[in-house]
């Protein structure tokens, strides 16, 4: 039975039939009003409850994820700070080993120098030989009045000469002694300088150590805050992670462009090695081979930087003993150099092929091939690029590591934001569904407004009658108040 037939069920007149249907429907709706209202309200409530429960679950999940993200960020921060502190301690160790391990020797040197200086000082303190004690008595005698006696005068003259001679000898001896002291002091000069240098170098070492310890103290404080799960530190680390994510992403995009250029350099000549026609899975084998070479270069770069302990993507490489790591460095560097050489030669071959093709094209269109000057410049340029790019690509491991570590945080943040949005949407939808239920009830009543109005009218009349009856009873009771008729 089609819809049209159902509409025309009551009469051939469409309008009349529709009217009958409307009356039937309204009557049915009026009769089922109470149940319908309850059903609609119950449905709206249940939808709201379900969505609110979902929202609550999502919020709980979001909280768990926030907590987990914080743990991850703090853990990463702790690991990073541990590495920084470890490196600082290594530097301190180097300073101590390099500078302060020589402290006993330096101390001995200083002591020796001080002893030497003291000895020299003592030596320089020696007093010059004093004139004989009898010289004063003789000097007094020589100053006696000579009078007129020539003998006495001669004697006194002789005494005076003796005194002067003795004085000259004393002065000479004093000068010699002063010169000796000066020589001793001169000898002390290198000792003072040596002492000053030793003390200065020790001072530098101690100052450097002091600076390192201040830095270590700061890092330790940061580390302690991380261990205490400080919110501010977590926020700082998150922000730092986001910055790292975008910076590393930018560098990776640059590296990607480098890879594309590298690919363009070697894809064409690769067909000389693997053929220009064969395909694998719809891709030219030469293209895949070029791609594989670039991938291998990147992988070698990863291993090289791992072995150098610059990156930490593969714990197994980091934990290798130093001898093995050194071997790995040599092997990866050798492979990388070989691949770079292969690329350089391929780049040269590409240039030759391009020249050959150009010559053929010119020959086919009947143009004589001309000699182009400085044709060697792009050839050399391509070769150099072919050699340099693999090494440049090798360093992609550094931004890759940063990107991977930072993406863990960024993905966590994005997921929590998504979940939060989902929870909010669920809550809003629940509320809207509840309101929609209420609106539906009102619309339902609007559809059956006619019987409802009639019902209201009947009720009002009945209520009015009831009031009249009550009033009559009251009047009656008032009239017979206390059983006494007024």
């Amino acid at each position, binding site marked *: 039975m089609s819809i049209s037939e159902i509409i025309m069920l009551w009469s051939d007149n469409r309008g009349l039939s529709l009217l009958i249907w409307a009356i039937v429907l309204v009557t049915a709706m009026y009769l089922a009003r109470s149940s319908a209202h309850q059903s609609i309200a119950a449905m709206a409530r249940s939808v709201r409850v379900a969505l609110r429960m979902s929202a609550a679950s999502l919020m709980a999940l979001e909280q768990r994820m926030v907590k987990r993200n914080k743990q991850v960020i703090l853990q990463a921060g702790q690991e990073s700070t541990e590495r920084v502190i470890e490196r600082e301690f290594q530097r301190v160790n180097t300073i101590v080993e390099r500078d302060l391990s020589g402290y006993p020797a330096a101390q001995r040197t200083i002591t020796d120098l001080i002893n030497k200086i003291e000895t020299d000082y003592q030596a320089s303190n020696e007093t010059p030989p004093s004139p004989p004690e009898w010289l004063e008595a003789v000097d007094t005698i020589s100053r006696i009045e000579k009078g007129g006696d020539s003998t006495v005068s001669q004697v006194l003259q002789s005494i005076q000469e003796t005194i002067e001679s003795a004085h000259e000898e004393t002065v000479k001896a004093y000068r010699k002694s002063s010169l000796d002291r000066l020589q001793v002091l001169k000898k002390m000069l290198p000792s003072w300088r040596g002492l000053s240098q030793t003390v200065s170098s020790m001072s530098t070492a101690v100052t450097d150590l002091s600076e390192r310890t201040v830095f270590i103290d700061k890092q330790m404080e940061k580390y302690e805050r991380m261990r205490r799960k400080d919110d501010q530190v977590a926020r700082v680390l998150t922000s730092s992670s986001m910055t790292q994510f975008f910076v590393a992403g930018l560098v990776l995009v640059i590296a990607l462009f480098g890879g594309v250029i590298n690919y363009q350099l070697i894809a064409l000549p690769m067909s000389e090695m693997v*053929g*220009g026609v064969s395909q*694998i899975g719809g891709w030219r084998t030469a293209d895949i081979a070029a791609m594989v070479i670039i991938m291998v270069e990147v992988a070698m770069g990863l291993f090289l930087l791992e072995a150098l302990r610059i990156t930490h993507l593969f714990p197994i490489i980091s934990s290798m003993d130093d001898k093995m790591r050194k071997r790995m460095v040599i092997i990866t560097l050798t492979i990388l150099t070989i691949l770079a050489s292969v690329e350089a030669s391929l780049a040269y071959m590409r240039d030759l*092929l391009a020249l050959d093709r150009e010559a*053929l094209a010119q020959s086919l269109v009947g143009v004589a091939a001309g000699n182009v000057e400085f044709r060697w410049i792009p050839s050399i340029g391509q070769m150099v690029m072919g050699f340099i790019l693999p090494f440049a690509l090798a360093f992609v491991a550094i931004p890759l590591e940063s990107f991977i570590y930072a993406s863990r945080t960024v993905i966590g943040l994005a997921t929590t934001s998504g979940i939060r949005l989902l929870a909010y949407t669920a809550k809003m939808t629940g509320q809207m569904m509840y309101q929609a239920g209420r609106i539906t009830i009102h619309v339902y009543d609007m559809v059956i407004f006619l019987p409802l109005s009639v019902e209201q009218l009947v009720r009002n009349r009945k209520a009015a009658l009831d009031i009249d009856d009550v009033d009559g009873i009251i009047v009656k009771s008032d009239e017979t108040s206390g059983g006494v008729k007024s």
Partner: protein
Amino acid sequence: MKIYHLVSTLVLCSTLIACGAKAPKSKAVYMLIDTSGTYTRELDKAQRIGNYLLGSLNSGDSLAMARIDSGSFSEKDIIYKVTFDMRPSMATTQKHRFKRQLDKFISTAKPSAHTDISGAVLQAAEFLNETQAQEKYILIFSDLEEDLVRGQIRDFTLPLVQVKVVALNVTKLRSDNIDPRDYLNRLDDWEKRVSEGGGLWRVVNDLDRLDKLLDS
């Protein structure tokens, strides 16, 4: 997570290798050059088409050129044939050699007394089938006016299954100008013969549209 990119790349490469090598979608082109009568004056156009083919075909493709003369069902009429090497440098060398042969033929070609187009097409079909190329073309550079030697039998179905036959530079003869129906009948007859043999027929008279010559 740490080595996600590396692992995904390795998986991709392994999958590609696992797919195995596919057969190359190669082309084989056999060009027939009419050397009968006054048509030899058109040979410079044939040279242009030859150059275009040399510039268009790649490693793994095959190219052959043969003249149409009095008895064309013969290997002797093949000017030069080659399957281009997989290595681009070798393929370029082969193209240079091919061009030299073509130039030599164009400069030394002599008019033939009769025109055995059917025999030439049969020879071309044999060559193309041997190449096992995916796309096979016979390019007929001729006015399509067949003039057989008495006694030659050529009224049989040509084996041209999946071969695209392209008539190039089909010039109008003096008699065609008197009654153009001769020209149209000539084209219709050849289309019918090619279709009966299982081939696809096409006519390209405008040599400025050579870029669509080898379209699938």
